């Protein structure tokens, strides 16, 4: 077998590492605009979905969003928008953030103008289990939120709770949705995240 000196080994590894990092760094920088555009488009798509728009073709998402939505004044960092919903009325878009089982979960909630009723939601996640926690992105789950109330019969803020069947207690139908079976932690994450829904 060929002998390799220590110097050879050091130079070999250093050169290899340098080469690989330069290539990867350039690819990463080169693709960044595309990646950022994907992220923005996805965000707009998510908000449009929460606002009740179905089947917006991918190409039009950004221009359509800018046409019907505008950031609310004075709330630059909080990502609150005023949007014309699919039903013709205007709504307020609020962003929520939370923790799932494996990583962050987040979503956009469209509230009625007075901030008491949910007009639509759409959730997203970084790494929830496909078929279980990842179901929070399904229409079946998000549609359950439509029309739910953030305040209880006494006018106190309760948000919309996400609760397992059979554990509803005395929480009204209008203040809760069913949790996803098999995804206890993710459902609890959505439950906690929804407590942060409030108009600024």
């Amino acid at each position, binding site marked *: 077998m060929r002998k390799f000196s220590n110097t050879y080994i050091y130079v*070999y590894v250093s050169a290899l590492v340098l080469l690989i990092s330069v*290539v*990867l760094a350039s690819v990463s920088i080169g*693709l960044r605009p595309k990646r950022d555009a*994907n992220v923005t488009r996805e965000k707009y798509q998510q908000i449009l979905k929460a606002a009740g728009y179905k089947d917006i073709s991918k190409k039009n998402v950004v221009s359509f969003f800018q046409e019907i939505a505008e950031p609310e004044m004075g709330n630059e960092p909080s990502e609150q928008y005023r949007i014309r919903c699919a039903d013709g009325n205007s709504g307020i878009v609020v962003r929520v953030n939370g923790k799932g089982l494996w990583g962050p979960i987040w979503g956009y909630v469209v509230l009625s103008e007075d901030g008491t009723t949910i007009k639509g939601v759409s959730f997203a996640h970084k790494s929830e289990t496909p078929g279980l926690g990842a179901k929070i992105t399904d229409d079946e789950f998000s549609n359950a939120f439509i029309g739910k109330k953030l305040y209880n019969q006494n006018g106190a803020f309760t948000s919309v709770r996400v609760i397992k069947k059979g554990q509803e207690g005395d929480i009204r139908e209008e203040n809760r949705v069913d949790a996803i079976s*098999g995804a206890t932690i993710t459902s609890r994450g959505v439950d906690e995240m929804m407590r942060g829904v409030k108009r600024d």
Partner: protein
Amino acid sequence: MKKYLGPLSKDNPILVQTLGVCSALAVTAQLKPAVVMALSVTVVCAFSNLIISLIRNTIPPRIRIIVQLLIVSFWVVLVDLLLQAYFYEISKLLSVFVGLIITNCIIMGRLEAFALSHKPWPSFMDGVMNGVGYGLVLVVVAFFRELLGSGTLWNHQVIPKALYQIGYLNNGLMILPPMALILVGVMIWIRGSRVDR
């Protein structure tokens, strides 16, 4: 061509060598991520094999594992970046599992056992075939898990709604990882029973 077909059955990385089982359990709850994962592993395995084979005579044996890891990581990061730029939805679907391809024993195993001692073209083919062999198992497992666990295939409802109304239920256990292990076990059993020992 025939000499490359071993990984599809006789030397299947999952069923015979029981490598890469971990990711086979993680990404097979639905067909789509399973297929993309299989493609990604195939690409990484084939090109890592190719590169290692090309530079095999320059690699000092004492640090060969480190060099292999570097090359594998390079391809994995590259695949991840490309997925994020051009197949954004799918890259989200796979999330962390793409990064974890680095730790997939199949790839390191093929580099050690094959690419270090073979010419570039056979090494490349070996990588492709091992990726395909791995992918076949993933697709079969994912097919049954998605069909019986969610009643869908490739996110399309295939079990008719009428069936649910007369009391049919999706099998919740199917979407949990233990069921994937049982399915892989059943596949190993079926394969083993058909082979002469």
